[in-house]
C-alpha cells in the first residue's frame, strides 16, 4: 500500500512536471537560453541599425555634393565587412588563440552547427560580433569623407574587418593577452571606437585636408575654414538612431538577457549620453558664444563612446560624470585636431571615437565599482576612485596605448599601400565638382538648387 502511495505520488509529481514544465519541450534552461538568444539578436539588430545612424550623421555633416558617396561608403563597408568578417575576421578574433595574439580557426562560421543549441548560439554570437566589426569599419568613413577615392575605400574596408579590428578584438575579447591581464572594455570603447577613430586619424593624415579647408594667411599661418554640413536635421536623426542603437551596443554586450545588469547598463548609457550632450553644448557656448548644434550632437556621441567601456561597472552618478567629461573632451579635441594639428576630420570621428574611446577605457580604471562589476559578472574590481588602487588603471592604459600603436602602424601602412596602388584621393577637380557626380555619376538631390561652389 505504501508503495502504491509512494509510486502514485512520484508519478503524480512526474505527470505534473511533464504537463506544466515540458509543454512544447521547453525547460527552464531552454527558456533562459531562448531569452539570451532573443536578447542578443535584438541587440544585434539595434547595433545594425547604427549603420543608418552613421550614414545619416556623416552625410548630414558633409556637403550635398558628396552625399551619395558617403551613403555608398557606409553601405559598402557594412556589406563587404559582413562577408569579410564571416570568411575570416571572426576566426581571427575568436578562433583558438595563437600566443594570445590572434585566433586561428572558426572561419566561415564553421563552428555554427544549426542542430545544436551551442551551434545556434555561435551563429547568433557571430551576428552580434559582425555588427560590431562593421561599426568599427564605418567610423573611418567620416574622417575620410569628401575626398577619398571610392575604390580605395573598398579596399580599406576589407582590410580593417579582416585584420586590424579582429586582432584587437582577440587581444581584449577573444582571450588574448590583454584580456589575460584583466583589461575591461565591456562594450568596446577601445575595441570598436578607438580602433575606428585611430584608423580614421591615419586615413585623414594620409589623405590630407579637403581643398579650401586650411588657407594660408598673409603671415604664412594656416587658418582653418569651416565647411558646413548640408543637412543638420538628417545628422540629428542619425545621432538619435545611434543613441537608440547604443541600447543594443552596450546592454547587449552582456550577450545575455537573463543577466539583469542590462538594466544598469541601459541607464548608465543613457545618462552618459545626456550628460555629454549638455556639457558639449555649454562648452561650445562658452568657447564660440553660440550653442552649436553639431557640437551638441557630437557631445551625445562622445558621452556614449566614453561610457561604452565602463557601462557595466560604474554607478549612474559616475556615468553622469564620465558623460560630462566626454562632452567637454570632444569639443576640445575637435578644436585641437582642427586648429592646432590641422588634420581635417569632417565629422569629428577621431575626437568622438578615438579620443573619447580612450578616455572611456581609462574611466574604467578610475570609476569601476565592485558592486556593479559583480552584478554584471565581471568580478570584484574597483577603480582608483573607489579604493581599487592604480593597477586596473594601468592595465587599461596599457591596453589603450597598445591598441593605438597597433592600429596606427597597420592603418598607416595600409593607407600608404592603397595610395601607391589603387589610389586614395580623388583629383582636385573631382573634389570640387563633388564625388557624387565624379565617382557615382549621379546627384543626391536632383532638382534642388544648391550652391555648388563650396
Amino acid at each position, binding site marked *: 500500500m505504501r508503495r502504491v502511495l509512494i509510486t502514485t505520488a512520484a508519478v503524480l509529481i512526474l505527470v505534473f512536471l511533464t504537463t506544466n514544465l515540458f509543454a512544447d519541450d521547453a525547460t527552464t534552461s531552454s527558456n533562459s537560453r531562448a531569452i539570451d538568444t532573443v536578447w542578443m539578436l535584438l541587440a544585434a539588430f539595434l547595433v545594425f541599425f547604427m549603420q543608418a545612424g552613421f550614414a545619416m550623421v556623416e552625410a548630414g555633416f558633409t556637403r550635398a555634393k558628396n552625399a551619395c558617396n558617403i551613403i555608398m561608403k557606409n553601405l559598402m563597408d557594412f556589406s563587404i565587412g559582413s562577408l569579410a568578417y564571416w570568411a575570416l575576421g571572426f576566426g581571427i578574433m575568436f578562433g583558438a588563440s595563437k600566443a594570445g595574439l590572434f585566433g586561428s580557426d572558426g572561419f566561415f562560421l564553421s563552428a555554427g552547427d544549426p542542430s545544436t543549441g551551442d551551434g545556434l548560439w555561435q551563429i547568433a554570437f557571430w551576428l552580434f560580433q559582425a555588427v560590431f566589426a562593421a561599426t568599427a569599419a564605418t567610423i573611418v568613413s567620416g574622417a575620410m569623407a569628401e575626398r577619398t577615392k571610392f575604390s580605395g575605400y573598398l579596399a580599406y574596408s576589407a582590410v580593417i574587418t579582416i585584420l586590424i579590428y579582429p586582432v584587437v578584438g582577440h587581444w581584449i575579447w577573444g582571450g588574448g593577452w590583454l584580456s589575460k591581464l584583466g583589461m575591461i572594455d565591456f562594450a568596446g570603447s577601445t575595441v570598436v571606437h578607438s580602433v575606428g577613430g585611430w584608423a580614421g586619424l591615419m586615413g585623414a593624415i594620409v589623405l590630407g585636408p579637403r581643398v579650401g579647408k586650411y588657407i594660408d594667411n598673409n603671415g604664412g599661418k594656416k587658418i582653418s575654414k569651416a565647411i558646413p*554640413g548640408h543637412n543638420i536635421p538628417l545628422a540629428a536623426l542619425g545621432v538619435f538612431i545611434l543613441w537608440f542603437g547604443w541600447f543594443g551596443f552596450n546592454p547587449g554586450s552582456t550577450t545575455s538577457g537573463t543577466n539583469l545588469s542590462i538594466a544598469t547598463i541601459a541607464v548608465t548609457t543613457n545618462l552618459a549620453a545626456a550628460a555629454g550632450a549638455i556639457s558639449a553644448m555649454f562648452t*561650445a557656448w562658452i568657447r*564660440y558664444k*553660440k550653442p*552649436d548644434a*553639431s557640437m551638441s550632437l557630437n557631445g551625445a556621441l562622445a558621452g556614449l563612446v566614453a561610457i561604452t567601456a565602463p557601462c557595466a561597472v560604474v554607478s549612474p552618478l559616475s556615468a553622469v560624470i564620465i558623460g560630462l567629461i566626454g562632452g567637454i573632451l570632444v569639443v576640445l579635441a575637435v*578644436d585641437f585636431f582642427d586648429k592646432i594639428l590641422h588634420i581635417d576630420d569632417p565629422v569629428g570621428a577621431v575626437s568622438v571615437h578615438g579620443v573619447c574611446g580612450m578616455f572611456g577605457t581609462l574611466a574604467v580604471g578610475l570609476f569601476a565599482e565592485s558592486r556593479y562589476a559583480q552584478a554584471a559578472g565581471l568580478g570584484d574590481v574597483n577603480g582608483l576612485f573607489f579604493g581599487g588602487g592604480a593597477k586596473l588603471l594601468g592595465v587599461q592604459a596599457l591596453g589603450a596605448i597598445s591598441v593605438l600603436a597597433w592600429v596606427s602602424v597597420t592603418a598607416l601602412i595600409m593607407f600608404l599601400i592603397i595610395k601607391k596602388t589603387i589610389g586614395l584621393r580623388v583629383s582636385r577637380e573631382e573634389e570640387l565638382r563633388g564625388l557624387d557626380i565624379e565617382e557615382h555619376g549621379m546627384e543626391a538631390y536632383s532638382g534642388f538648387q544648391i550652391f555648388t561652389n563650396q
Partner: protein
Amino acid sequence: MKLIIAYIQPEKLNDVKQELYKAEIYKMSVTNAMGCGQQKGYHESYRGVDIEVNLLKKIRLEIAVNEDFVAPTINAIIKGARTGEIGDGKIFILDLVECIRIRTGETGNEAIG
C-alpha cells in the same frame, strides 16, 4: 520702358510687395540671390570655426514698367525696403527695348502691365 532691378533684404520682400501693390504695380519677378555690398556678413560659425559669410542672402526683384511708372516703382521699393541700416539694398535701372506678352503676342506698353 525700363527694367528695374532691385536687391533687397529677404525679410523685406513682403513689405516691398505691399508698397508696390499700393502703387498699383502688380507684376514682378523674384529670384534668390547672394550679395556682397557694404554690409558685413553676420557672424556665422560651424563647429567653432568661422564661416566667411561675405555673400549674404538677398532677394532680387525684376520689374518691367512704362516710363511713367518708373518713379512710383522706385519710391515704393525704397519705402518698403529702407531701414536706414547698411544692407538695405540697391536699385538698378536699365532701358527696356521691347516687351512681349507670350499669350497674346502684344508688344510694348500694352504688354508690360
